[in-house]
């Protein structure tokens, strides 16, 4: 089959690779119809993520048709049309049973590498380094999906791929960012980053009853999408105005009630999963990497919540702990527990409350994945989200 492979820094290539095979009894093989490039794939692209191997198949946002199932699979059958969540989760361990799917205790065969960097290991993830399992990704014609009874969500035929594809990652991720804000009546929410995840955080905050949502970015087209499509009430371009001043002005001097960091370290070119020693080194040399996070903490009103869904990999310095402690702030964070949100969010799509396809700006065939990466990285042609068709 054809698959988009990581070939080194700033180099991806569509290669001919072996077809996936059933390796565990709960596996399914999915023939992929649509797959997307995620902002976090750019960290892999830029070569910041350790434990990548030349030839790794990328991609963790994908959907398609089930073409084969292992002997223990009960909930899905050959022929089902499914969306696949990016965390690989067993559904049986204590974490999965508590709904914490992205920290599944069984799905990362390379957990020992992650433990060295993070203390404990999170779940395995498709196409996202060997530290997170070494699983082949979904920017391909076919993919092996472990724990097929737990992850994949059957989707009705009357919805298009583009309407349901983002249930695999960015819609639930943005939604969880808003949910962690514990939104109350009258709340003003500020969202750092108007990339695809930021757009869904904005839309979700409104779905969850926020009074107003303020979007912060530096690309005009992204702020425009936030306002016109996601529903942000105000936008701040941080290259034009001082974010802190603008927020105070917009909130009567209180600061936003809840802040969402949908930037992570990516805006500054720093890896998701940072080599332990490299991060340590960075602590000595760099002082201003988590710009958005620090800004969000300092801006948040007393007693507010800072919800972090932007990806961080290692260690940051000059973390304003004093602000958190003295001003009674709450920090909440996590890789999205996608399986928890897929069904309820599918219902919202079905009811017409939201059409997630609004973020798509570019559609390319799988063959042109390398062009898609370049375009997304360089924000060419007002690129917001690239969907690859594998049909």
């Amino acid at each position, binding site marked *: 089959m054809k698959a988009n492979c990581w070939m080194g820094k700033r180099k991806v290539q569509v290669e001919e690779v072996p077809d996936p095979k059933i390796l565990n009894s709960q596996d399914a093989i999915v023939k992929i119809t649509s797959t997307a490039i995620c902002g976090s794939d750019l960290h892999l692209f830029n070569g910041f993520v350790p434990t990548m191997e030349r030839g*790794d198949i990328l991609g963790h946002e994908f959907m398609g048709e089930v073409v084969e199932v292992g002997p223990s699979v009960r909930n899905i059958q050959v022929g089902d049309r499914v969306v696949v969540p990016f965390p690989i989760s067993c559904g049986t361990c*204590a974490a999965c049973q508590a709904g914490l799917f992205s920290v599944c205790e069984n799905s990362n065969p*390379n957990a020992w590498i992650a433990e060295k960097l993070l203390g404990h290991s999170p779940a395995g993830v498709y196409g996202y380094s060997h530290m997170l*399992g*070494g*699983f082949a990704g979904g920017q391909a014609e076919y993919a092996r999906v472990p724990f097929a009874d737990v992850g994949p969500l059957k989707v009705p035929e009357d919805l298009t791929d583009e309407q349901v594809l983002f249930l695999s990652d960015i819609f639930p991720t943005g939604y969880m960012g808003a949910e962690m804000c514990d939104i109350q009546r009258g709340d003003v929410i500020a969202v750092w980053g108007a990339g695809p995840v930021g757009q869904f955080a904005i839309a979700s905050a409104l779905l969850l009853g926020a009074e107003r949502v303020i979007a912060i970015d530096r690309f005009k087209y992204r702020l425009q999408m936030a306002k016109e499509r996601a529903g942000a009430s105000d936008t701040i371009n941080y290259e034009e105005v001082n974010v802190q001043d603008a927020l105070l002005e917009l909130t009567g001097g209180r600061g936003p009630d809840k802040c969402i960091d949908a930037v992570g370290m990516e805006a500054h070119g720093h890896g998701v999963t940072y080599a332990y020693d490299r991060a340590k080194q960075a602590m000595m040399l760099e002082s201003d990497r988590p710009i958005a996070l620090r800004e969000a903490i300092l801006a948040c009103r007393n007693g507010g919540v800072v919800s972090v869904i932007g990806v961080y990999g290692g260690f940051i310095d000059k973390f304003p702990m004093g602000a958190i402690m003295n001003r009674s702030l709450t920090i909440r964070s996590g890789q999205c527990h996608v399986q928890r949100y897929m069904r309820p969010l599918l219902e919202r799509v079905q009811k017409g409350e939201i059409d997630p396809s609004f973020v798509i700006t570019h559609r390319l065939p799988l063959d042109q994945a390398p062009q898609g990466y370049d375009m997304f990285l360089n924000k060419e042609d007002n690129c917001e989200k690239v969907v690859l068709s594998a049909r």
Partner: protein
Amino acid sequence: MTGTEQSLRYGGSLGERRRANYTPYQTYNRRYTDQPGRKVEQSTERWAKGLGWLSIGLGLAQIAAPRKVARLIGVNDDDETRNTMFALGLREITSGVGILSRPRPVGWVWTRVGGDLMDLALLGKAMSSGDNDRNRVAAVTAAVVGVTLLDVITGQQLSKGGNGARTSNGSRTISRATGPGFRIGGPIQVKEAITINRPRSEVYRFWHNFENLPRFMAHLESVQILDERRSRWKGKAPAGSTVEWEAEIIEDRPNELIAWRSLPDSTVPNMGSVQFRDAPGGRGTEVLVELRYQPPGGKIGALIAKLFGEEPKQQVKGDLRRFKQVMELGEIVHSDSSIHRGPHPAQPPEDLNKVELGTTQQPQEVQS
């Protein structure tokens, strides 16, 4: 065999001490106490001290005057050489301090052997590079070979003396570091824990059937139960060979603890225990495993294995992780890379017959 005879044979048995005063989670880190009584040991130890001072002197020279040392041994004096010198210097000082600070520095002397091997490898590399003075490098290589021999002899002498730690009046010192055929300072000791989301009785039952262990222990090929207490183990050794030994259960408390050890004169002397406790909050069972073994290939084998990344603690942790998968899921979870030995890109396998799928069977109910 009476208990006394047994303890004489083995230098004290873990089981007896357990029965006497067992408390969960007690540590094995107690230092051995031994009193070498024989003359050959004393002279060996003097040799060892000499080697310790040699290490420190050489290490200091490598750090303080890397250029001079480089010129002395005929190696080109560039940045890379200076960095290597610095690292080698640190290593020398570490093993020197280690030797001098221990009453019976057997382990530290073996670190010198490891260092010698490293030096020889580097010298071999220097020899093949055109930049260096080959005659000098050859002379230094000959000297290092001599020192290596000396280190090996000293290490062997100390190791022999350590076996059993006989005191002058003939009694044996019971210590945590001695066991069935262990040499003092020799055995590798590992302690690891994991929580399994299954009832304690089920987890205990599965482990109690030792024939299940190879399903999740990567270095075991098979275990055959011989009778109620005894079992025959076959382990994987380097280069595709196997090692076999017999073991006996020395303590068995249903749903709480199983302890075993190899019979005397085993090729891989080892002992282990596993404890089972209820995890708080109904989260299943906490499993605590303690293992001690004398690695195949002796100390040099262990040292080389360690230098090249075969980390025992990590191995046991990996075994426990697979144990959890077998108990919770009925099989071991595979990724596209984990089915290959060594690095492999995350791509589907070409041929399923050429990968290591391990166990895929459902855990069986076993009779206790």
